[in-house]
């Protein structure tokens, strides 16, 4: 067994929360440059240039890229030979969120109850997903998930007969309904298969794959490329002002499913795609 003290987890999460909101990952910066080369629309180009400038200003002036500094969604891959000491894993993560959001001048966007809607004041709690597997390391992946795009995420139970054609139509429909509300250029995380909740979780996890990297499954990779091309023919463009860059990427994860089912979950992510990870 390898001991990992909760203070190391808290420190790591704090740092990831702050850095995610201030330092956009290189895959996003490359996506802006790639889109600027292809975009035909002057208004679309101007939006992309301002977003690049925004990323630079966030990095240098230490001011969040977006005022919605997100709901912290945390995926943990916990090696079964790791022994977390000094307290609970969830508490350690939430302490990291609390410290990161308070000390980093990040916005508190979480209310304690969906009904009374009183702000918790420190952006806690996070949404935490833990997978246990072999090994003696602890991998923590953090996403600061914006609310505007999350509100356009969708779910549909298709029938097996609807098949891959039905899945494609549904995903394109999701891009259309998200439109300018969700701050395009978008990234789509898609979970296909499993049960109701499994596909939804996969749709979030799919977003952690590096933007622009191929899907390891060649068939899914071809499907992703086809759907991205179709999404970028819709004309919605950056911010919905019209153009060729409606989406930066579509990432698909699948899971075996029941003979009756074809669940499809689509998490809509905006261009403020703030994700960071660390392995302890």
């Amino acid at each position, binding site marked *: 067994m390898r001991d990992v003290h909760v203070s190391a987890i808290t420190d790591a999460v704090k740092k990831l929360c702050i850095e995610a909101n201030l330092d956009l990952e290189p895959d996003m910066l490359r996506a802006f440059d790639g889109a600027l080369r292809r975009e*035909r*629309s002057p*208004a*679309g180009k101007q*939006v992309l240039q*301002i*977003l690049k*400038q*925004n990323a630079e*200003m*966030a990095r240098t*002036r*230490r*001011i*969040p*890229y*977006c*005022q*919605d*500094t997100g709901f912290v969604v945390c995926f943990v891959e916990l090696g079964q030979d790791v022994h977390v000491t000094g307290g609970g894993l969830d508490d350690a993560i939430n302490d990291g969120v609390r410290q990161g959001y308070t000390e980093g*001048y*990040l*916005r*508190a*966007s979480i209310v304690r109850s969906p009904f009374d*809607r009183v*702000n918790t*004041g420190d952006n806690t709690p996070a949404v935490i997903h833990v997978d246990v597997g072999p090994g003696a390391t602890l991998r923590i992946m953090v996403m600061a998930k*914006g609310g*505007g795009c999350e*509100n356009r995420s969708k779910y549909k139970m298709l029938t097996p007969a609807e098949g891959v054609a039905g899945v494609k139509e549904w995903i*394109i429909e999701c891009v259309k309904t998200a*439109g*300018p*509300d*969700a*701050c395009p250029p978008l990234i789509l995380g898609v979970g296909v298969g499993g049960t109701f909740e499994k596909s939804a979780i996969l749709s979030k996890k799919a977003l952690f794959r590096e933007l622009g990297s191929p899907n390891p499954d060649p068939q899914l990779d071809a499907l992703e490329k086809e759907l991205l*091309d*179709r*999404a970028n*023919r*819709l*004309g*919605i*463009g950056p*911010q*919905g*002002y*019209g*153009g*060729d860059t409606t989406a930066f990427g579509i990432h698909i994860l699948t899971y075996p499913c029941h003979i009756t089912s074809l669940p499809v979950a689509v998490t809509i992510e*905006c*261009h*403020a795609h703030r994700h960071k990870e660390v392995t302890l």
Partner: protein
Amino acid sequence: MSVTTAADGIKEIGTPLSDGDVESLRAGDRVRITGVLYTARDAAHGRLLPLIEKGEKLPFDPRGQIIYYTGPSPARPGDVVGSIGPTTASRMDTFTPSLLGLGLKGTIGKGYRSQPVKDALRAYKGVYFGAIGGAGAVLSQFIKKLSIVAYEDLGTEAIRRLEVEGFPAIVVNDCHGGDLYQDGVKAYAREGA
């Protein structure tokens, strides 16, 4: 007139706005706004609604004014404000027609508006501007002063009065039925989507 066209083709807007100012704006016009904006989003609108229904005085006089749908991140010491980009406007759709009826002239946000809002823009001479969603760091530069007007307990959702200089936006829905989102898709949609 407090709308003029600058040498770079961008329309310079000074607040407050008159009916004539609003009528001179067309979907797709790029603008720079100088003057006062009031911030309000979900929770603040929720508190304004009962006041409007009872005909009571609002915490600010909406006549000629612009509401910016935003909840800024906290300012670092020495800064006026933190990150301050727009939030999705459609969540305020149910409140907007009655505010336009009270003389509000403009709103700034991102995303689609409902048909009742578009109808109210025509009926009351109002305009809906888009600001670039997610460009909160860049947009913070245009905020010169900030004060809390009401509902401080709401934190980021409190109503704030902003003094802005050259705040960049684009006309999405004008008072003539123009819609930038529809025009954009028409211009750039390609076969095979």
